[in-house]
């Protein structure tokens, strides 16, 4: 493994010698890396290389799958996430945005308010209701969506465009006030204009959050991320600054993949 050279803030995640098996199949092999706080880390690699599996380790989503065996160390803010950790609290801190926007069949407002309500935010008093409205609006503003939906907050979210729905999903994650955003191909179902909006948004969000994004779009990884990891057959082949990966990669496999020589 090349030097992982943490480019920015202190490490948010520290992963050491991570192995993961689905039954007999090993999906991750001795993965070690550090994710810097307030940075954007892009994970690239061909289908089935383990990048999404790795992403799902970070908020322990793989717990939901049978037959998964994990070895190695994954620390979030210095604590072993497989140790004495409240998974619900962990997932509240570490939000996930998926490939396809998946708004709930309810109003725009209720979509964003859903998380805070589930996590026990009460709306019995007028002050509490005002606090919820403020939280929803702030989340929509931070997801760069508020101006487009402010006149239709109480209409169904299903009427929004794909790009708006995806930003709504981001707002929904932000409303829970997380610390980390995990994104699994968040723009692959979107048109270029919606994609550009989300990419701009990512750049604004990294001031407050740590972002890890899985993407098939290499230009996107190049545009938005500070650090890039290239996965192949479950192995983290190269992990370095995005500039280094796209201009002067050290490993020939990385060079071949990003230049379209295979994959």
């Amino acid at each position, binding site marked *: 493994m090349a030097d992982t050279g943490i480019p920015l803030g202190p490490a948010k995640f520290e992963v050491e010698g991570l192995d993961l098996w689905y039954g007999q199949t090993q999906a991750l092999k001795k993965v070690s890396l550090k994710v810097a706080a307030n940075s954007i880390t892009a994970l690239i690699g061909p289908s089935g290389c383990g990048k999404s599996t790795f992403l799902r380790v970070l908020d322990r989503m793989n717990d939901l799958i049978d037959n998964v065996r994990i070895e190695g160390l994954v620390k979030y803010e210095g604590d072993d996430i497989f140790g004495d950790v409240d998974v619900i609290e962990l997932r509240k801190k570490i939000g996930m945005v998926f490939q396809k926007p998946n708004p709930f069949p309810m109003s725009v407002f209720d979509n964003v308010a859903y998380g805070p309500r589930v996590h026990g935010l009460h709306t019995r008093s007028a002050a509490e209701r005002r606090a919820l409205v403020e939280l929803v609006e702030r989340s929509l503003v931070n997801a760069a969506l508020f101006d487009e939906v402010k006149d239709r907050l109480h209409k169904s979210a299903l009427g929004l465009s794909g790009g708006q729905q995806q930003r709504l999903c981001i707002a929904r994650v932000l409303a829970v006030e997380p610390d980390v955003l995990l994104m699994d191909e968040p723009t692959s179902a979107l048109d270029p204009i919606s994609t550009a909006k989300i990419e701009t948004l990512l750049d604004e969000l990294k001031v407050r959050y740590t972002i890890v994004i899985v993407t098939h779009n*290499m*230009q996107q990884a*190049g545009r938005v991320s500070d650090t890039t990891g290239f996965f192949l057959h479950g192995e983290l082949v190269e992990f370095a600054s995005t500039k280094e990966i*796209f*201009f*002067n*990669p050290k490993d020939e496999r*990385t*060079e071949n993949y*990003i*230049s*379209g*020589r295979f994959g």
Partner: protein
Amino acid sequence: MQTRIHFIEELSRLNHDILAMGTRVEEALRRAIEAMKAQNVELASEVKATDEVINALQLKIEDQAAVLIATQQPVARDLRELVTVFKVADNLERAGDHAVHLAKAAIKLAGEPPFRQVERLAAIAELECGMIRGAVEAYLNQDAEAARRVAAIDDEVDSEHKLIVRELLELMRERPDQVERATRLLRASGYLERLGDHMTNICEAVVFLVEGKHVELND
């Protein structure tokens, strides 16, 4: 992959033009120095015509490279190769300009008995023809070691140039009536010295292409 094949084809077309450009620059330099030696004004004028071809090739190469960047979005070594294409074309074009300057000096110096330093200038030009060819070949073969060897020739060029300067300054002190002509020759030697620097720039770009790091090959 179809697009990769297309990219490689376009790149080889580009490199073919770079080879053509390098050949023209070498040819221009040979003609310019030959014109100076033979006091052949007609031959010197031909150098200017060749320079138009060289300039046109530079624009063609740069346009092709820009289109490839826009349409293929190359990364890593592919991108470094295209960045290098711009540097190679730019430095070859500047070398062509220096050949023209030399040809103009040849025209101005014709008609009077030549200085013996012209022979020294011809020797430098010979070294530089080798540099032009070597630099272009190092680029085409992506050979960093060859690039380093070519750049090393520039040291010889520089010391030859210094000798010429010293001799001409002495001549000017002894023959004040020859100051104007000697100054022309002094400047001509300066153009040749600069031409060598441009070839060194190409060699540095080749090392950058191959090794991904910037180097200074001639301090």
